[in-house]
């Protein structure tokens, strides 16, 4: 059964439609990539599906329960959400920031249960932040900070993780490491939805790709089925070639169309 089911979601600001009749479902065991050019409505779609934004039409439900009827805490125990903007104001130690991921379980900083502690330590290890636990957030590089936020989301140990551009600030090594982490979580039965701008990463790691263009979902399927030169030109405005080499795919971006 789907963890998250969205159908017919629509949202407009001042008469300008940002998301139009968008529907999708997220299954356990799947790593889904949401791709689309800037301004195609990806973030708005995520917020609608999470119930953080009130949809004008359509509905979303988590484990069969409409998001509108879930309390914030109930929702947070099912979905960990990593937003795109992650402003940190206080130079808190890394471990404390990650511990905030346990908020929905009633944890308060300085008073974590044994279960909370274990989840936090596990998330810190998974994001390769060992040794950084007591570092102040304002002394970290952009990439280290991105991993701290990712660890915060993972510490919630939810069945579903939704991440909005989690790898944007990371170097290639950590980009691949993060996608591998997502892939192994999916193999372990979690559902993962991530926005990525690097099409290579989507092609290589995702089981499923949602293509978004001008507020609509224009394709939904495996990378093999949906990555075509024609679609890349139409959605992203780029000229690209797809070549198949045995089981693996190769994407060559030649330039703007």
């Amino acid at each position, binding site marked *: 059964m789907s963890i998250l089911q969205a159908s017919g979601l629509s949202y407009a600001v001042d008469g300008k439609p940002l998301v139009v009749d968008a529907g999708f479902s997220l299954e356990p065991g799947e790593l889904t990539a949401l791709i689309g050019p800037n301004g195609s409505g990806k973030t708005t779609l995520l917020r609608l599906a*999470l119930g953080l934004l009130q949809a004008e039409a359509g509905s979303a439900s988590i484990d069969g329960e409409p998001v509108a009827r879930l309390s914030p805490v109930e929702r947070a125990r099912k979905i960990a959400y990593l*937003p795109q903007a992650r402003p940190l104001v206080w130079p*808190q130690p890394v471990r404390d920031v990650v511990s905030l991921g346990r908020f929905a379980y009633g944890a308060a900083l300085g008073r974590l249960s044994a279960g909370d502690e274990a989840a936090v330590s596990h998330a810190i290890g998974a994001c390769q932040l060992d040794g950084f636990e007591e570092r102040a957030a304002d002394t970290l590089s952009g990439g280290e900070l991105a991993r701290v936020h990712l660890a*915060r989301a993972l510490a919630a140990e939810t069945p579903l993780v939704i991440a909005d551009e989690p790898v944007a600030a990371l170097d290639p090594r950590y980009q691949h490491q993060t996608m591998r982490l997502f892939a192994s979580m999916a193999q372990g039965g979690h559902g993962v939805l991530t926005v990525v701008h690097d099409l290579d990463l989507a092609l290589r790691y995702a089981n499923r790709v949602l293509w978004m263009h001008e507020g609509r979902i224009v394709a939904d399927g495996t990378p093999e089925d949906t990555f075509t030169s024609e679609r890349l030109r139409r959605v992203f405005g780029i000229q690209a070639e797809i070549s198949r080499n045995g089981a693996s795919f190769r994407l060559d971006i030649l330039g703007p169309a």
Partner: protein
Amino acid sequence: MNRVVSILLVGLAGALVLSVALGSVPLPLDRVLAALAFQSSQGDELVVWQIRLPRALAAAFVGAALGMSGAALQGLLRNPLAEPGILGVSATAALFATFVLYFGLATAGPLVLPLAAVAGALIATLLVALAAIRTRSVVTLILIGVGLSSFSAAIMALLMNLAPNPFSLADMVNWMLGTVDNRSFDDLIFALPFMAIGVVVLLASRRGLSALALGDEAAEGMGLDLRRQRLAVIIGAGLATGAAVALAGAIGFVGIVAPHLVRPFLRYDPARLLVPSAMLGALILMLADIGVRVLPTDSELKLGVVASLLGAPVFIWIAARRRLA
């Protein structure tokens, strides 16, 4: 118990003893102690019980309310410069109180003045929070606070300009500058309930302030009810600040200095910051008030003036040193 809290407790106890022992009338410690135990002359008991103790407690409660309100507003608005004084909350509360005094409404009952101050504080906090949530810009927020402060000060100046006699003028100056001189236990009793409710509301909602450290969006995703959290802080800080102003007039910068000084010792956690900020705020104002009383000036310095003299440079220092966001 936390080490910071223990140290502050000792400091508070010491400051309370000093406050009761020191004053314009020299009184040896044994006579002070005797007066506290009602074993002394009526004159001594009057000085200790009617003058020094209520004054010391007023300074402590006002400092605690401002310190905690400052810490909570800073957590909500994610800005170390947010504070009842800077945001214009104190000035608006003082204006409402002055209004009541000016038109002689305060004689209608002992609760009129605190109610007016609390109403002013709540309105100002609501305005500033609405603006903060709409703009999400730190600079805009501070500027709106400055605007609100200036506007309240302008109306206050207008009232002073039109003051019918020097007595009401002197009264208004007191409200503007802030003082705990001549406070009685009755004044305390009528302000404390509002303060207590405000403090309870702030403490009950403090865990959400930790979540807000990651930003509104992440906090909401983490399961925080953002509307309830904002409302709780606005009401809590409004009640506490309003009651503080009702007791002492507008006293600025305590709410900025106290949280700033204790923050590093609490791992920068906005939730754990509340209680130590209140304690340090109380300590700062008690010490400042002792200073005001023992300084050999011709006319006594106003507490709010001293607080601003010490606090404004700290404000500039914090603003100049910000690194994150």
